[in-house]
C-alpha cells in the first residue's frame, strides 16, 4: 500500500522525514510512503482546502492549535486505543501533549516539540564586559541596559533585548511573564481569559517598561527581532528552538543560549508548542493500518532522536529528551530544560489571539492608552474570540 504524508517545507524537516520514511519502509516492505510538502506560510490554507475536499494525505502534520477544528469536522480519526493507550501516552510524553486528548482519546501526537530560550550575542557580551547571561528579569534589564547603544540624535542603533509581540513575545508574555508575576492566562478549561488582574497589569507594565522606561529596546527595531539579532545589532533575543538552524548558518555571529530568566519569585516558566501528526479520515482499511504503523514509528524514540539530530527540534518524550547528553548540550540544553516547566496555550485562533496581544501593546505605545485599560480591552477581545469558538 501507498500512503501519503504531508508536511510543510523546511529543508531539514524534509531531510529528516525522508530518512524516517526510508527506515520505515525498510522495516515494512509492503508499505510505501509518499511525502508532499508545501510552503510554510501557506501550508494551513493548502491543508484546509484539500482535506475537506477528500484530497490529500493519509497522515498529515498539523499545528497543535488547529486540532479542535479538525476533530470537530471529523477530518481526522482518533488514534487506535490498542496501540496508543491514553495512559501510556501520558506517561511517556511531556505533559503538554495532553492538549491532544479529547473525549478521553488521543487524536494526534508530535514527533518533536519546541520551547523558548534566551539567545545572546557573545561578542556584544564580551564588548560590554558581561560574563554570564541574565538569570532573572532584573538582571535581564540591567544586562540589556549595558548592551544598548544610541546615536547622537538619540536613535537606537543597537538594542539590549529585542521585543515584538508579533514574534515570540506574545508567548513569552502570556505563558511566562504573566505566570512569573503571579497570574494565569486562562482558566483551567481554557474558556475564560483570566489575565485581566493586578498580576496581568504588572506583567504588562514590566514588558512595556523595557521600551518606555528603560529604553533598551524598540519593538520595530530592524523590522524583525530575529533580523536584529542575526545582524548583530541586538544583545539578547528570545526565540524558539527552531531558530537554531538559521543562526548556525549566519556567518560571523557568535551566540549562546540560556534558559529564560526567572521571575521576581525565582520561578521559571516556558512555552512549548509542537506540530503533531494525525491520521485523516480518508485513510481506511489497509491504508489505515499502514498509517497507524507509520504513526507509531514516527513517534518512537528512534524517530525523535533522528529528528533532533537532523532538524534540531526537541524530542516529545522525556525518555528521549532528557538524556544527559541532550540536557548537557550547550545549545539544546536550555531548551530541553525549559520543557520541564513549559506550558502550552490552547489556542482557538492563534493569529487572532496574537493580534489581541499585539494590539494591546500598540495601543499603549502608539495611542498612549494606560496599561490597565489596554489590558482590560485585550482581555475582553480575547474573551470574545474564545466565546465565539466555544459557543458553537
Amino acid at each position, binding site marked *: 500500500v501507498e500512503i501519503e504524508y504531508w508536511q510543510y517545507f523546511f529543508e531539514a524537516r524534509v531531510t529528516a522525514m525522508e530518512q524516517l520514511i526510508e527506515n520505515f519502509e525498510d522495516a515494512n516492505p509492503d508499505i510505501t510512503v509518499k511525502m508532499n510538502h508545501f510552503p510554510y506560510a501557506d501550508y494551513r490554507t493548502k491543508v484546509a482546502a484539500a482535506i475537506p475536499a477528500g484530497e490529500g494525505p493519509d497522515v498529515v502534520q498539523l499545528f497543535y492549535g488547529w486540532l479542535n*477544528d*479538525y476533530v*470537530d469536522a471529523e477530518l481526522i480519526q482518533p488514534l487506535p486505543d490498542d496501540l496508543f493507550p491514553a495512559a501510556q501516552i501520558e506517561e511517556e510524553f511531556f505533559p503538554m501533549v495532553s492538549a491532544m486528548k479529547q473525549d478521553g482519546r488521543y487524536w494526534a501526537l508530535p514527533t518533536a516539540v519546541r520551547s523558548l530560550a534566551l539567545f545572546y550575542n557573545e561578542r556584544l557580551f564580551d564588548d560590554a564586559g558581561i560574563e554570564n547571561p541574565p538569570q532573572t528579569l532584573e538582571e535581564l534589564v540591567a544586562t540589556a541596559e549595558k548592551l544598548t547603544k544610541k546615536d547622537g540624535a538619540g536613535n537606537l542603533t543597537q538594542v539590549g533585548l529585542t521585543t*515584538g509581540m508579533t514574534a515570540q513575545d506574545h508567548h513569552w508574555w502570556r505563558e511566562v511573564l504573566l505566570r512569573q508575576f503571579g497570574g494565569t492566562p486562562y482558566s483551567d478549561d481554557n474558556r475564560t481569559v483570566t489575565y485581566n488582574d493586578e498580576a496581568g497589569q504588572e506583567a504588562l507594565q514590566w514588558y512595556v517598561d523595557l521600551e518606555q522606561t528603560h529604553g533598551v529596546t524598540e519593538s520595530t527595531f530592524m523590522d524583525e527581532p530575529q533580523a536584529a539579532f542575526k545582524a548583530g545589532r541586538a544583545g539578547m533575543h528570545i526565540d524558539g528552538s527552531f531558530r537554531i538552524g538559521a543562526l548556525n548558518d549566519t556567518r560571523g555571529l557568535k551566540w549562546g543560549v540560556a534558559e529564560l530568566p526567572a521571575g521576581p519569585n525565582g520561578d521559571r516558566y516556558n512555552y512549548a508548542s509542537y506540530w503533531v501528526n494525525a491520521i485523516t479520515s480518508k485513510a481506511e482499511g489497509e491504508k489505515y493500518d499502514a498509517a497507524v504503523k507509520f504513526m507509531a514509528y514516527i513517534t518512537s524514540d528512534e524517530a525523535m532522536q533522528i529528528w533532533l539530530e537532523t532538524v534540531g527540534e526537541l524530542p516529545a518524550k522525556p525518555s528521549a529528551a532528557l538524556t544527559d547528553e541532550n540536557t548537557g548540550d550547550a545549545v539544546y540544553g536550555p531548551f530541553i530544560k525549559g520543557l520541564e516547566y513549559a506550558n502550552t496555550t490552547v489556542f482557538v485562533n492563534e493569529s487572532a489571539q496574537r493580534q489581541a496581544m499585539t494590539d494591546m501593546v500598540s495601543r499603549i505605545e502608539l495611542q498612549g492608552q494606560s496599561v490597565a485599560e489596554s489590558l482590560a480591552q485585550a482581555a475582553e477581545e480575547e474573551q470574545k474570540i474564545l466565546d465565539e469558538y466555544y459557543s458553537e
Partner: protein
Amino acid sequence: MNFYSNLNIGQKRVLWAWGFLAVPIIFYTVVRFYPTANAILLSFQEWNLLGDRTWAGLENYATLASDPVFWKVFKNTFLYLILGTPISLIVAFTVAYHLDKVRFMHGTIRALYFLPFMTSAVAMAWVWRWFYQPVPIGLFNNFLATFGIPQIAFLNSTTNALPAILAPAVWAGLGFQIIIFMAGLRAIPATYYEAARIDGVSRWTVLFEITIPLLKPTIVFLVVFSSIGFLRIFDQVFNMTTNNPGGPLNSTKPLVLMIYDTAFNGYDMGYAAAQTVVLFTILLLVSLLQLYLLRDR
C-alpha cells in the same frame, strides 16, 4: 441554415455577437458567476471550511455591522481608493504625456517606469518595508537623520502607515497605467494636433480640449480599473505588514485583507463571504457610478 438566412441583417449580427460570446459566457458562468453565487449563498451560512454548512440567516451581516473593526476597515478601503486613484492616474498621465514626446532613449525610460510592475510584489514589498524602517536600517530615516531631521515613524504609526503602504501600490501600478496611457495617446490621429497647432491654441488647451477628451476610452478604463484595484488592495498591505497584518491597530487593513484573515485564519467562511458580498457591492456601485459619470454624452 434556412433559419439563419431568414433573419434580417440586424438579427444576423446579433446572432454573430452571441456566437462570439457563447464560449466566454459559459466560461464566466462556470468559473466566475457560479462561485460568486456560491459566495453570496455562503454569506447567509456558517461554515468553517472543514465541517458542514449551516444556515445562519442574516447573522453574518449583523455581526459585520456591529464589528468596529469592519467600519475601520471600510474607512481604510475608501481611503486607499480616494488617495490612490487620483494620485496614480495624474502621475501616470503626466509621465506618459511627457514620455510620449521624448525620443532619446525613449524605450529605456519607458522600461524604467515599467520595471516595478514586472517585479514580484512580495520582494518589492519587503524592499519598501525596509526603506521605511527607523535607523539604522531604514533608507528614508537614515536620509533624514543625516540632515538631523527627527525620524518619521512610517509603518509604526496609525496615521502614516496607510499612505506609506499606498506609495508602493501606486509605484507598482504606475508602469501599467503609463503603458495604457501611451497606447491611448498613440491612437489619437496626428491631424487633430496639427489642426490645433494651426489654430495656435495653447498647449493647455490642446491637453484639456483635445488630448484628454479623445483619451476618454482610456481614461474610463483606467479610472474604473484602478479604482477596482485600490478597493481590492491586498498584496502590498499583506506583504508590508506580515508581522501584524493590517496593523498597527488595523490602521492599514483593507477589506480584502479582512476577508482573507477571516477566511484563512479564522476559517469563518460565512463571515468572510458576507464581507465579500459587501466588497462586491461597493465595487459594483463605484464602477457603475464611474461608468455613468464618464459615459459618452
